[in-house]
């Protein structure tokens, strides 16, 4: 990637460059600047964000635990942070096809309770954090994607380069071509979110995941609906498991009653599902037909759609964070708490604590080294307390199915909460998610109902509500390592599952004029969820960053 026979790029030296303007990256930037201001030190911090504006690629439920925000910006209320809707009531329900039964509150381990949490848009919170950061003198550059890691002679990370702009699909330069820029930093902090493209390269190069379990993932699909005010219960939170997923597939749905008569409806499918005929998008659509959900959405209007992969491996899957010249933060490492269905508080903690270590190192005159004390400082305390006690929930569900697994993890969460003890020790995640698929011919085809255009929709009308921007004439950003795999292997064995796991209709099997089937990649549809990179059974797809500013323009997601 470093052999460029192109006009030379401009470069700039900074103290810290942060990749990704999400909760982790922005918290790191703000904490760094707070520490520098306290000491009267001069510190240059740059944040690169691939979305056209901060928060534009953020998608989260979201019920937010403000614990980390309290620590970062204690007067966030006075500063107008967009956390206004406190959770007022909470339910956790096992769904059957037409009904369901709620798990009694007294059975739920304390960590399930959402008292003191907020229903909010994480995208709006990030936009607000970005404003706070800019007011402190942090330079945030939305619309610029870091596409390349730069290395020093000694192999340590030297910084990143932003992608070239104005490159045509055939790699030629259009008249408006502009070369990318190199940012050389003493430390490079990576907060790209789940399955980030640079994180993937760094984890591989430095073997950061050699000592941990494989990372696990889910795909979350979210819609925002504007509903009848009479049916709206501001602050009400509903979580469900069970239907429409079979007992051997993990996941569940949520309905959050947010401000302005909106409800956030979403569905998560764990990506270790086995049936290649499964379509997370259609499970989401089917979920809305359950009487509990459909009665809310009657006559309502869908105003937004999006999807994003999330990490779910938890404590056992956290890779080594520090690498020579920087560190992974947030879901680039994977701090999602699966039973709590929350991760942004840990993302913020990881950003803040990483910043503390980096600032100390900078003060001591260090640069581009691996800071051995970083991992312990970041994990000890809040993140460990949050994640360790729930470490067996996901493996129990994977091993014993949803019903029994949930019951067992309930017991485990109680013993962990009360006695800091688990009957199971620490269970392992056995395989990466892509290795779970079974052959298509032995898997039952799932009969998904046709969309009705009112409650349930197809992919293209959904994408319309993701406000996609994508310069069409640019290189395809979904790289196939071997162009023959989709037809020769994936189609034969798994009926090419990309047709179904992609929530944006990027992958299509079409029949050419010569009668031969081929894979068409509609790259402009991509919502940057990264599911293909995770779930492709041959691990043949590399998701790389398209031109900066491409992708969804989520509003309030």
């Amino acid at each position, binding site marked *: 990637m470093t052999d460029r026979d192109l006009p030379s790029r401009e470069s700039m030296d900074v103290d810290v460059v942060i990749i990704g303007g999400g909760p982790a990256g922005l918290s790191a930037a703000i904490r760094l600047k707070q520490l520098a201001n306290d000491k009267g030190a001069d510190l240059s911090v740059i944040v690169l964000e691939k979305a*056209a504006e901060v928060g534009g690629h953020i998608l989260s439920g979201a019920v937010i635990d403000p614990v980390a925000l309290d620590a970062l910006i204690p007067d966030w209320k006075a500063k107008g942070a967009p956390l206004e809707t406190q959770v007022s009531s909470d339910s956790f329900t096992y769904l059957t096809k037409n009904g369901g039964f709620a798990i009694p509150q007294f059975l739920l381990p304390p960590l399930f309770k959402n008292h003191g949490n907020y229903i909010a848009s994480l995208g709006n919170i990030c936009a607000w954090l970005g404003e706070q950061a800019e007011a402190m003198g942090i*330079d945030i550059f939305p619309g610029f994607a870091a596409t390349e890691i730069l290395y020093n002679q000694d192999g340590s990370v030297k910084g990143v380069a932003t992608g070239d702009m104005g490159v045509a699909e055939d790699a030629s330069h259009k008249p408006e071509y502009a*070369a990318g820029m190199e940012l050389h930093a003493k430390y490079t902090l990576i907060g790209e979110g789940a399955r980030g493209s640079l994180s993937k390269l760094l984890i591989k190069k430095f073997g950061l995941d050699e000592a941990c379990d494989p990372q696990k993932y889910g795909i979350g699909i979210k819609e925002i609906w504007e509903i009848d005010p009479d049916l709206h219960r501001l602050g009400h939170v509903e979580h469900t498991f069970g239907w429409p997923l079979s007992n051997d597939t993990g996941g569940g749905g949520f309905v959050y009653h947010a401000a302005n008569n909106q409800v956030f409806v979403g569905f998560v499918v764990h990506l270790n599902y086995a049936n290649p005929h499964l379509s997370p998008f259609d499970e989401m659509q089917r979920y809305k037909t359950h009487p509990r959900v459909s009665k809310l959405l009657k006559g309502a209007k869908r105003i937004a759609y999006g999807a994003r992969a999330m990490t779910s491996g938890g404590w056992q899957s956290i890779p080594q964070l520090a690498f020579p010249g920087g560190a992974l933060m947030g879901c680039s490492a994977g701090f999602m708490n699966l039973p709590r269905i929350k991760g942004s508080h840990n993302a913020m903690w990881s950003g803040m604590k990483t910043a503390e270590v980096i600032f100390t190192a900078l003060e001591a005159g260090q640069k581009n080294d691996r800071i051995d004390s970083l991992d312990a400082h970041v994990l000890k305390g809040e993140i460990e307390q949050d994640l360790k006690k729930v470490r067996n929930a996901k493996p129990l569900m994977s091993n014993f199915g949803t019903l029994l697994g949930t019951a067992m993890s309930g017991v485990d969460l109680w013993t962990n909460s009360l006695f800091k003890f688990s009957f199971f020790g620490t269970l392992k995640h056995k395989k990466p998610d892509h290795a779970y698929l079974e052959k298509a011919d032995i898997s039952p085809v799932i009969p998904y109902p046709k969309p009705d255009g009112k409650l349930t929709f197809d992919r293209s009308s959904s994408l319309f509500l993701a406000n996609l921007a994508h310069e069409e004439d640019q290189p395809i950003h979904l790289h196939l390592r071997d162009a023959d795999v989709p037809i020769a292997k994936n189609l034969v064995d798994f009926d090419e599952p990309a047709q179904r796991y992609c929530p944006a209709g990027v992958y299509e099997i079409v029949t050419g004029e010569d009668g031969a089937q081929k894979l068409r990649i509609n790259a402009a549809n991509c919502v940057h969820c990264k599911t293909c990179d995770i779930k492709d059974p041959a691990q043949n797809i590399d998701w790389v960053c398209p031109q900066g500013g491409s992708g969804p*323009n989520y509003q309030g997601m």
Partner: protein
Amino acid sequence: MKVLVPIKRVIDYNVKIRVKPDGSGVDLDNVKMSMNPFDEIAIEAALQLKEAGKVDEVVIATIGVEKSQDVLRTGLAMGADRAILVQVEGEVEPLGIAKVLAKIVGDEEPGFVILGKQAIDDDASQTGQMLSALLGWGQATFASALQLEEGYVRVTQEVDAGLQTIDVALPAIVTVDLRLNTPRYATLPNVMKAKRKPLEVITPADFGVDTSPRNTVLETYEPPARAGGITVQNVDELVEKLKNQAGVI
């Protein structure tokens, strides 16, 4: 010669417009805003003239809320030399905008003014024409080609019958169309440099201009959903339906 490029901050063209549930207007809360695409083309045209040595300075200006500084910074990053924000609260109609711009023209004395043919939010396509009238300058609208000559500007415009080329004596107003050029990217080094370029903030009161709206919006609503079509068997049936059912002939 100096060129003035007035620009506007509008809802980003990728964003689906949504009417507020109470019908009081378009929902702008947390919505992505960016520079009107036609104005980017106007800036690009001005920058190309500067690069050709025909223009010395490119000044951009906008009338809008404080956050309109963002689109001015984008224009500066593209290569404009300096920016003026006339800060207002709330909506200003094309006539109010044109009156403020006329004052800026009085102060700055540009050789000509180049701006987008319309803004993609209200699609009014009035500001350039009103400014021309207020100043008593010639105007060339909907430019798809542009040549700056000694004392005049030669503009090709798209008209119903094809293309029409006109010469307009300077000083003049030119409004630009989509096909004039492809605007350049604001590159990262230039975005960084733009943070240090001059951006002056003033108010309409500094000019003694009243920008309060002359119109009242009674109601805002979405266009009705398109009803499904029907298939007709023959021309007679088509004519019959057009006449009796659709009532269009």
